[in-house]
């Protein structure tokens, strides 16, 4: 199980440039699409492929495309979401840095399928040098006649604009991203209407993640059917996993969906095991928003089967004993990790990144941060743990966008699986206050 789609050619010197990329079979998908396929045929192939959105939510990409309203007489837009900000996730940065033309090739095919004549790449502002790389790649594509008017002698025209953000996690949410691209604060919109009907500038719009779009070239070249032969069951294709935390080999790995979690963590091909020969304690498998799982539940499901790196296996057991594949931000914690401190840290992140539009999220994330902070500092009260559970429940599902859920899940899951650690913080303030948190785990037992 180690077939690759995206990073197959990553080690070829100069693959960043148009010429080398082209000589390795790049842009053949554009030729095939524009010259031999009708737009809706491409959408059909993408539907057939079972490709799920790679940004985190996992919504089927082909279905998203088919929602676009092609009857209204308005321009249509494709936006590539490159606002990668989910803690633990750095795969899109890697893809755009190493092989930017793969994204552009995918975008051209996608725009053709959607009938869009403008595509935007919304890159998070912190990725300054990536903006440079993308602008260069776009220029090269224009020069080679793959962008602009009459692409490859057809009537299809396409402009791609690289747009930068300015530091806001929330702009990774598609409607906030659209607001931001319109030059406003990144406040998410109420859905419906969905962007496929009313999106950028009030026009039908599709927002896809970088990795999703990078897969389109393969699907156009080989057909959706061929794509389904890679991966396992309904988790078709490959997934970029960005592995970090207390492991020997942090980095970005393209895995064929279906690899076991145990192999992913311990095999030398991937994470290479836990750093300094320590024990695995917990994993956040899909970016900081998804539930944290302790060692026994991340390696095996509650029913005792090996946990696999697929959408279905990781979510086996729901939130009681499972998690999500999410964005593929794989954060590994060793035996020394203090779960309370980590939960406080992530909650501070969500509080900082809340746009402030909905009260449950704006206020709730702050309250959770405060309560966790006092627990972490040995000033916790006996009712604090239940209070946290209660606040999390009052945020979840009660906000316009999923940032509320994303802030509630880490807290709820940390307490669900590591309640004894929270209780220890309440019961032993003198130890919590005086012991370095790197060694607190020893006391908790």
């Amino acid at each position: 199980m180690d077939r690759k789609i995206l990073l197959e050619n990553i080690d070829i010197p100069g693959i960043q440039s148009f010429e080398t990329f082209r000589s390795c079979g790049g842009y053949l998908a554009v030729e095939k699409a524009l010259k031999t396929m009708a737009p809706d045929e491409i959408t059909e192939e993408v539907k057939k492929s079972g490709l799920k959105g790679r940004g985190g939510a996992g919504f089927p990409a082909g279905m998203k495309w088919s929602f676009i309203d092609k009857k209204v007489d308005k321009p249509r837009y494709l936006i590539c979401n490159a606002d990668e900000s989910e803690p633990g996730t750095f795969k899109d940065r890697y893809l755009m840095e190493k092989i930017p033309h793969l994204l552009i090739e995918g975008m051209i095919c996608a725009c053709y399928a959607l009938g869009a004549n403008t595509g935007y790449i919304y890159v998070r502002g912190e990725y300054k040098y990536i903006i440079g790389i993308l602008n260069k790649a776009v220029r090269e594509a224009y020069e080679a006649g793959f962008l602009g008017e009459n692409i490859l002698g057809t009537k299809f025209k396409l402009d791609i604009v690289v747009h930068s953000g300015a530091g806001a996690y929330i702009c990774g949410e598609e409607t906030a991203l659209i607001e931001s691209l319109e030059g406003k604060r990144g406040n998410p919109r109420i859905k419906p209407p969905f962007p496929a009907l009313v999106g950028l500038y009030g026009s039908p719009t599709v927002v896809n993640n970088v990795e999703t779009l990078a897969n389109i070239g393969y699907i156009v070249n080989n057909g959706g059917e061929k794509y389904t032969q890679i991966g396992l069951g309904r988790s078709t294709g490959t997934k970029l996993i960005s592995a970090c935390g207390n492991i020997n080999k942090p980095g970005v790995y393209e895995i064929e969906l279906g690899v076991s979690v145990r192999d992913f963590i311990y095999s030398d091909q991937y994470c290479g095991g836990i750093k300094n020969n320590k024990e695995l304690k917990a994993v956040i498998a899909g970016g900081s928003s998804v539930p944290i799982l302790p060692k026994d539940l991340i390696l095996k499901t509650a029913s005792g089967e090996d946990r696999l790196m697929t959408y279905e296996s990781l979510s086996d057991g729901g939130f009681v004993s499972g998690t999500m594949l999410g964005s593929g931000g794989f954060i590994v914690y060793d035996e020394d990790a203090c779960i309370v401190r980590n939960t406080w840290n992530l909650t501070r992140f969500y509080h900082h990144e809340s746009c402030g539009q909905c009260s449950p999220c704006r206020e709730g994330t702050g309250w959770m941060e405060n309560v966790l902070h006092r627990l972490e500092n040995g000033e916790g009260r006996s009712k604090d743990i239940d209070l946290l559970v209660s606040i999390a429940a009052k945020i979840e599902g009660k906000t316009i966008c999923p940032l509320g859920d994303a802030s509630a899940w880490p807290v709820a899951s940390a307490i669900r699986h590591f309640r004894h650690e929270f209780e220890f913080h309440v019961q032993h303030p003198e130890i919590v206050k005086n012991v370095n948190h790197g060694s607190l785990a020893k006391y908790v037992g």
Partner: protein
Amino acid sequence: MLGKRINHSLHQKQNIVVCFSGPTLEKVLKIISRYPEGKQKSAIIPVLHIAQEEFGGYLNVDTMDYVAGLLGIEPIEVYEVATFYSQYYLDPVGKYVIETCRTGPCAICGGEAIQSYLEKKLGIKTGESTPDGLFTLKTVECLGACGYAPVMQINTEFYEFLTPQKIDKIINTLTKKSEEEKAENSKWTEKFF
């Protein structure tokens, strides 16, 4: 993001004349032209990035009002954006803005110790600038480089797998670079004045 509400100096309009230089203005107009007719407001984020870099490393009211004029929008629309995004500074900053990542994955790989070391090394607290105006020390949320933790960015550069020794080297290099630039400048004045 929410914390920025109270830390700005929006009331301090100084009525300074702000204007991009010829080539920069050309670039700005080109960026604005990338967006559809009537949607020039879309260019606000990139234009504010340029404005911040051109006019002293932060956005004061005069700069923001100028950008509003360029885009044909109300000043309040620029303030709204400038106060929302964390990459815009509303107060003066040093020549080098050091932003260390404080989020989970960096924190468990020694990010907190790196921040304390930087505070000690520069003799300032997070949020402050060195008296010579060279360094401002800040923290940021996840920079999307978790596999190379702990990380920080200084202006446009990412620095990865940080250790105290690496920090020493980076700070010393930047200090030296700045002194050399100063020395060159003083030679220039000696020569021509």
